[in-house]
């Protein structure tokens, strides 16, 4: 079997595509398959594929985007590049894209709360400074009772995504107690 695209090399990759409920099969050689998959990544954006990002990020009006595109303050990685390729450029990207990443991390991991180890250099002197900076994220504005009520109503309304968010909040609160 020869490749459907170049018609020359032997087809070794077999691709099934479903477009508008129409299924089609393609038989490709390795080289054409690689090109095809690069095209597909461009179309969807790797980060979108990772976590269905597109529905959590509300892009600012396109005009504003063109004038002042979001980029990292240190390595100058445009947010758009991260959206396409799914890779960040430096540790500062996490601060520059903080609002976007917060939702994305939750989507990927089911939580955006870190519970792992802390390197020794952050344990003593750095902790005082950083906890001050991080505090706004941790402010308790909701009571456990209030959250449990919200959880019940979210479940009743079959809004499971919201229910999961509230459940995480309840867990976090309970862990603090």
């Amino acid at each position, binding site marked *: 079997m020869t490749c459907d695209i170049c018609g020359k090399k032997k087809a070794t990759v077999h691709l099934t595509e479903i477009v508008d409920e129409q299924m089609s099969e393609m038989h490709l050689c390795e080289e054409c398959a690689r090109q095809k998959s690069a095209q597909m990544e461009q179309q969807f954006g790797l980060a979108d594929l990772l*976590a269905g990002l597109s529905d959590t990020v509300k892009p600012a009006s396109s005009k504003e985007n063109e004038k002042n595109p979001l980029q990292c303050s*240190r390595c100058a990685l445009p947010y758009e590049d991260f959206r396409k390729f799914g*890779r960040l450029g*430096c540790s500062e990207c996490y601060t520059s894209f903080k609002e976007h990443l917060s939702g994305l*991390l939750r989507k990927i991991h089911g*939580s955006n709360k*870190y*519970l*792992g180890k802390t390197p*020794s250099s952050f344990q003593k002197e750095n902790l005082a400074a950083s906890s001050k900076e991080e505090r706004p994220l941790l402010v308790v504005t909701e009571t456990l009772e209030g959250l449990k009520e919200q959880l019940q109503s979210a479940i009743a309304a079959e809004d499971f995504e919201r229910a999961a968010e509230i459940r995480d909040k309840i867990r976090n609160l309970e862990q603090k107690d």
Partner: protein
Amino acid sequence: MRIEELLNHTGEWLRGTGPSAHIVMSSRVRLARNLADWTFPGKSVKKDLEAVLKVFSEAVGRIEALKGSTLFGMTELDQVDRQMLVERHLMSHEHASNPEGKGLLVTAEEVVSVMINEEDHLRIQVMRSGLNLSEAWDIINAIDDALARELSFAFLPSWGFLTACPTNTGTAMRGSVMMHLPALVMTKQINKVLAAISKLSFASRGFYGEGTQASGNFYQISNQVSLGHSETDIIQNINGLIRQVIEQEEQARQALLLQNKPMLEDKVCRSWGLLKTARIISSQEAIELFSMVRLGLDMGILKHVDHKALNELFIMIQPAHLQKIEAKKLNAFERDTKRAAVIRQKLGGKDV
């Protein structure tokens, strides 16, 4: 250590013993770490990559646990040498295919290895034989602590360790276990098991890692999430899942014995015979036969087969290893004959 010296032995993790070694071949824990002062490797120029390599190698010199390890510069190795390191599970394909500015640190017994400047500045891994993630975690945790005293890691108290890909952010830890599940495959339950695994946010892959197909009934199972749980919680979760899969596989093995013992014995013994006598063999066929022999050994159908020898063959029969053993380039046909010879010799097959 010169790269050729690796050929005299295989990694300690292939010794074929340890908890549940009849189903779990090996356990691996890896941590991703980045240095706060440099951009991630994908966004770095050659000069920066080389600076990271230098800073890392100086830090290693001050760490007791890494004394006696070897740091290979990827550009100093040729393509076959790099491929050999991939085949030994010491580094990724990606690390071999684009060598500039990259390095690999390996300890003497190949228990610890560190890829430098792959997707993240450091990818530290520890391999153990059998189901032994907790031990692997203890080793890697101590090395990480020692490195953190020497190097300043990119870290935020709210999000943990910062990595190039957000799928690793947080603990930046992946625990994975290589399982041999022939009975679940033969009883056609494997897809059900794999589907359940993916529902629980765990991934399954083939023997040779990311992007590879399962072959010879070997499946690598690993955690996907790295936020919302501590490292030890994640390891406990994997252990819990793996124990259930072990139980399923054990039940399926018993079912096979009950249903059709002669058929199973025939399959195992034919595989053994083929491996000891074949003159030309592809790696795919070899791995499938290894799987059957291993099953026979673990179920008491075959005796007097060396588990360790069988495990080591998985590594030795791969293309770069065969070429290093023969010390010359081999084409596909030459490899298939050399592979058959290596297997016959290792399994004590008489040249009839």
